[in-house]
């Protein structure tokens, strides 16, 4: 399993995807930081940077970029045959792919810590709220990555995989606007509760359950495909 994680993370940085991901995310985050700076007149709060549109939007577009290739590309290039005929089980393969995408996201999130330092030096930093927000953002990323991986296991076309992922995400984003009960399905809505600086156990469990569900579905899809191929 470690072999796959190592290789996947390495491939993210052998191709431009890894750099593009981290780079664009940081640019968007900086823009959000600037907006927060303008809005609050200098009293920036780290946790609110995450709620600005540039951050969310770049996140919505970048995660599919990361996940779209996981299984689609392997299938298209035929390397899926190498992977699935190795002694490593499908469950481990799916988890390894998931972990490697999460690692890239963690690197990007870790890079945002420079803003923590800036705020610490030039303003007042609410470290608890900041950490809770980062925790929530990691949960949100995990849930979103798991959607992406599921989409990638369904199709061998990367673009379609990315589109499915974005559409699912946007759907859970705008659903509450149209449907009252939709609010409980909204990944973003749940995240906004974390930015207040309080860990919400119910939402934490929901995020994790959502992630596990998507991964189990991915494993099922891969196993089903074995007999349908």
């Amino acid at each position: 399993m470690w072999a796959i994680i190592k290789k996947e993370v390495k491939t993210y940085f052998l191709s431009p995807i890894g750099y593009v991901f981290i780079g664009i995310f940081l640019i968007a985050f900086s823009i959000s930081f600037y907006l927060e700076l303008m809005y609050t007149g200098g009293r920036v709060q780290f946790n609110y940077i995450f709620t600005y549109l540039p951050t969310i939007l770049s996140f919505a577009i970048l995660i599919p970029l990361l996940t779209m290739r996981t299984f689609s590309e392997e299938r298209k290039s035929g390397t899926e045959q190498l992977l699935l005929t190795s002694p490593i089980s499908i469950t481990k393969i799916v988890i390894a792919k998931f972990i490697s995408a999460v690692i890239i996201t963690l690197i990007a999130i870790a890079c945002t810590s420079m803003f923590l330092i800036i705020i610490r030096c030039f303003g007042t930093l609410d470290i608890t709220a900041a950490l809770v927000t980062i925790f929530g953002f990691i949960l949100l990323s995990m849930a979103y990555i798991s959607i992406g991986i599921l989409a990638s296991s369904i199709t061998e076309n990367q673009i379609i995989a990315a589109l499915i992922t974005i559409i699912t995400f946007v759907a859970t984003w705008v659903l509450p606007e149209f449907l009252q009960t939709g609010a409980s399905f909204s990944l973003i809505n749940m995240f906004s509760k974390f930015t207040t600086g309080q860990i919400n156990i119910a939402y934490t469990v929901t995020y994790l359950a959502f992630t596990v569900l998507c991964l189990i579905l991915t494993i099922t899809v891969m196993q089903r495909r074995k007999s349908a191929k």
Partner: protein
Amino acid sequence: MHILNYIRGGITLIEVKNVTKKYGNFTAVDNISFDVKDGEIVGLLGPNGAGKSTTMNMITGFIEMTDGEIIVNGYNISKKPSKAKKQIGYMPEGVPSYQELTAKEFIKYMSELKLVDRKIRKEQVQEVIKQIGLEEVQNKLIKNLSRGYKQRVSMAGALVGNPDVLILDEPTVGLDPKQILEIRTLIKELGKKHTVILSSHILSEVSQICDRVVIINNGKIVAIDTPENLEEKSKNKNILYVTVEDKAEKMSSLKDKVKDIQELELVKDNEDGTKQYKVVSEENIDLRKKMFEVLPKEDITIFELKKAEVSLEDAFMKLIGDKNERNEEKEVEQQGNSKDEEENKETKLVENSIEQDQNLRKENIDKNTENQTKSEKQEKGGEE
């Protein structure tokens, strides 16, 4: 090699028992059974779309069979996939590999996927690189390698971890004659230490490399035998090709004069006025002497007379031809029974594909004979 097989005890490494694979209503592989003994090189032979790759994909556990079971070195591939897969090194069709890695990185990754012990990993990767002859290109990106090297890298990926069984799907497709020869030598070399199953639609290849041949057509096994035996089996007729100048048109009455002739058929009407005939007789009767005696008396001038060589190609064509004829008969019956238009369309399609197949096969055979003569020449050249 044959004697070696007996010495190595003939332990059955792979058992394929009544395996069927269906895609909806289409049966890709239909109830096939065969086994592969330790140390054998077995060739799966058949036209494109016969079910070779499907069979291999089932043995390697890439796809699940609809019915039946496959046992690799004592492990059932469906029930104990991890252990069974560990016994196998697989080189899929089209030699997929990670283009963005270097040859060495790829082989190392494959060794990690195959759970090779960390302590011996480095050593083993180097060993395989040396064995396959990749030292010069080991640090190049796979996407920059030539087709021949890509093939080798993929084969190295299959070989690393020292599996008992090597499964190579169409190992020589897309290579030039020199590379084909090299890969064949390599496979023969590997066959000394490993059990090899390879698939091919190239007959000369299989007859050169393999100890046993499994001929598959339309998802069914047509024959399992050694290449020599298969050639022997198709040798039940003696065929002569004779080119003559026959101004008096007496050739057609030849059958009455020479009683041993079973069949006389005009093959080609040449522009220079000569005609080529095919003369068929029983296996134990050689008509060559008689032809030289009789024809001049009839005022027929012999331009050329040659005996047709019986090869594995003939055996293959014969076996597959028989099968196709039988299938066509069945289809005709079906047509008679039901007047469903769709079914008619389907059978037409099948017939077309059979025709196309046969054309393709003919082309392949032509190419093969060319390749064979070329490689033979090269071999001779090398010996000198």
